[in-house]
């Protein structure tokens, strides 16, 4: 290269770098410093790699339903009986959940159970259809819309195979035989209360917006705004319907939620 050309290019690139530096210093908001980029890439890679064996070892719906029913019957013995008032509440939850479940991709026998524990501010689901919601969570809900969102979120975890994949992973990790249900029944109830991978949570939330919560409306800001004051007061950083995912969701990756923020987030990614 000619020396003069090199110098021109050198000063152009240097000027671009200095301009970038200048622009970055003018931003009013400071960017956080963390290893999130590396963690995101590692987590994405881990998640993608784990999905390959999941796809190749898919259980049939019948087996998934059978596993879910056995797990549900075992957990039923661990909780106290419902009071008449709670039974009424459970019927109401079942009615709302049943309506929501009609929009799921897979037509599984979805069941809805209220766990009589006012300290349980959570909802979770088992493979094959059982959905659980804590009474503590119900205490915070102020509208049917909120309840529908939460139940839809859990239904979509079942619908998108997240629950059954967790069984598959756990069975693999503990060297359990999926055909021997007794081994799977060793899994404690807490195991199901933990959140899922962030991509799975995003996927579920997107589906809730797209198919269940507003089946005809175009997803957009405000989709989740309807009366979440109490939940949002307790958990101000995450949309209320994403409650079940709260434990597992790391700080989101920029761009993953499109051009929205906070409660108005509409995930764009697959």
């Amino acid at each position: 290269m000619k020396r003069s050309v090199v110098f021109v290019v050198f000063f152009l690139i240097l000027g671009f770098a200095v301009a970038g530096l200048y622009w970055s210093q003018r931003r009013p908001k400071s960017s956080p410093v963390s290893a999130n980029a590396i963690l995101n890439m590692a987590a994405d890679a881990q998640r993608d790699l784990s999905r390959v064996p999941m796809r190749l070892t898919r259980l049939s719906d019948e087996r998934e339903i059978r596993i879910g029913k056995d797990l549900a019957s075992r957990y039923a013995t661990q909780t106290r009986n419902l009071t008449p008032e709670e039974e009424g509440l459970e019927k109401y939850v079942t009615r709302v959940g049943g309506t929501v479940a009609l929009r799921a991709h897979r037509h599984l026998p979805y069941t809805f159970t209220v766990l009589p524990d006012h300290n349980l501010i959570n909802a979770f689901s088992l493979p094959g259809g059982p959905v659980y919601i804590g009474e503590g969570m119900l205490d915070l809900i102020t509208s049917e819309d909120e309840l529908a969102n939460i139940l839809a979120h859990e239904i979509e975890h079942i619908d998108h195979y997240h629950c059954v994949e967790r069984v598959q992973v756990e069975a693999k990790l503990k060297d359990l035989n999926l055909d021997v249900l007794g081994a799977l029944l060793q899994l404690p109830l807490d195991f199901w209360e933990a959140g899922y991978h962030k991509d799975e949570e995003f996927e579920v939330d997107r589906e809730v917006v797209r198919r269940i919560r507003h089946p005809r409306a175009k997803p957009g800001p405000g989709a989740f705004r309807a009366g979440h004051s109490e939940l949002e007061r307790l958990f101000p950083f995450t949309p209320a319907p994403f409650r079940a995912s709260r434990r597992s969701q790391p700080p989101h990756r920029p761009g993953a939620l499109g051009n929205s923020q906070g409660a108005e987030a509409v995930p764009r990614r697959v």
Partner: protein
Amino acid sequence: MRSFSALPVVVGGYWLAKRLGTSDERHLKLARVAYTWAGTGIMVWVLQEALRAPWIAVGWIVFAVVLALSTRWIRYQQLAWQANVVGLCALVRAFFYNYELEQKFWGPMSLRIFTISLVAAGLYFLSQKAAPKERYARAIAFLHSFAATGLLALLAWYEAPNGWLAPLWAAFALVLAIVDQRFELDELPWQSHALAGLTLLRSISVNLYVTATWHGISVRLLSLAIVAVIFYALARLIRMPDEWRKRDIHHVYSWAASAIGGLLLWYELQSQPTGIAVAWGAFGLVLFEYGLLRKITQFRYQAYVALIASFARIFLANLTAGEPGEFWGPRMYTILPLVLIFFFVYAQLPPKEENTVRDRRLHFDVLLAYLGTATIVALFYFQFPIEWVVSSWAAVVFALLGAALLLDQPLFLHQGLLLTVGVLARGMAHNLFGAGYFGEGDWQGRYFVLSSAAVILLASLFFAFRLRGRYGIPQNVNPWIRPLALIAGRPEQVVFFAPIILITLKMRSGMVTVSWGIEGVVIFVLGLATRQRSFRLTGIGILLLCVAKVFALDVWGLQTRDKYITVIIVGVVVSFVSFLWATYKDAIRQFL
């Protein structure tokens, strides 16, 4: 006044030493020694008694200088010894007493500065003029000179506020180095080294954390910038044995200066950490250009370190910077300049350039090219929606293969092939197996995304065919590398089969056989058009796979509608190929 009455005793002592007469030469020497030492001792006492406390050290050093001058005048060595001893007395006195003298003496100058500077000046004089014999000259010079420098360095400690001590010491080291350049005094470079070491320690332990400002400018920025500049100057000016210079030992200073510069950027840009990477990149670019211009290898090495650091840094701040949905944000305008810098530096390390042989021997050129590509790959990974990453990477493959062809750079070909494998892996792991189980209803679904990636890769065949066989396999290539070199010799195979695998696998179960059949025909025709036997065989292989799948699986497992459609279309396709075979049997045999 009482002490002045002892002056005649002093004079008498010296007079006796000079005029004493005795026949025994040994006695005469002893007597002279005794009288002169006694006279000097009494004179020291007289000065201590006669002068005010702050000036005693000054008086003693002046007396020592007089003794040293007298030695040269009357050539009596005992006076030189006495000068050294008196000089040390002045040093001790100054050290233990004069540093506490904070009262002003003249203008802004304190009594401490004035008296200690005089003592130090006297010691510097003694270091050159007070050697009683030649063989002691070096030791005396080192002793007094180090003592004087130590006094002045300590004086700077007392006088300079926190942030300014380091540049003061650095400037002092530079002055010593310049004086040494002029007079070639062996003891001065060592003092420069010692002061520079102290400066570096002070800069790292104190100056980096100074938050004070001077006329609105950060003291940290000013002081460390001065230190860095002085260190670069020291690397050039400080005198060293030639053997050391040949081994680039003097560049310890330039390394220290660059380290200080890098740390300074780090600390000054803490308020907006995204700027650090781009600042390091620009710093590395400047160092590289200077190193290239002046043919200084060590500057280029420092540049490489700065550039590697900037690359690592983007993973900690820049890649996750910006707001969701923001396209032209800090991520873009702080990372894109780095990409340009990496490739610009790489472009200036051509194989024919003799100046940069060492750089290439250490593979810095390859490293920088890979850093540039890795940076843009990482940028795209975070910049675009996650499902579109595969397409953006495919576009990078296209650009890399184009660059390999246009610039005649096999390195870009290797990168392109590597990234093609990356596109394939990414497409399979994320877009195929990692995607949701239920297809997207909009145009962003995996069909469009993966199709776009495949189309871009297939478009890259334009370059891949032209690059085929362009770069031969080196003679003594490592056996482990040989297969890779062979693959690089046939890039069109990789660039062709990666998208084909993606397309083949992305078909849904219902219509997969039909899709494969159509794909097989397209590939076969493409193989005919490009005269590629491997392509044609692939097309026929896929067609045979279709037929096998129809009879083994589809006839028994598919839904009725899919079953009929599959059998009909595959039948048509196989009939078409059979027709081609029957009509152009000989021609096709030639191709196969």
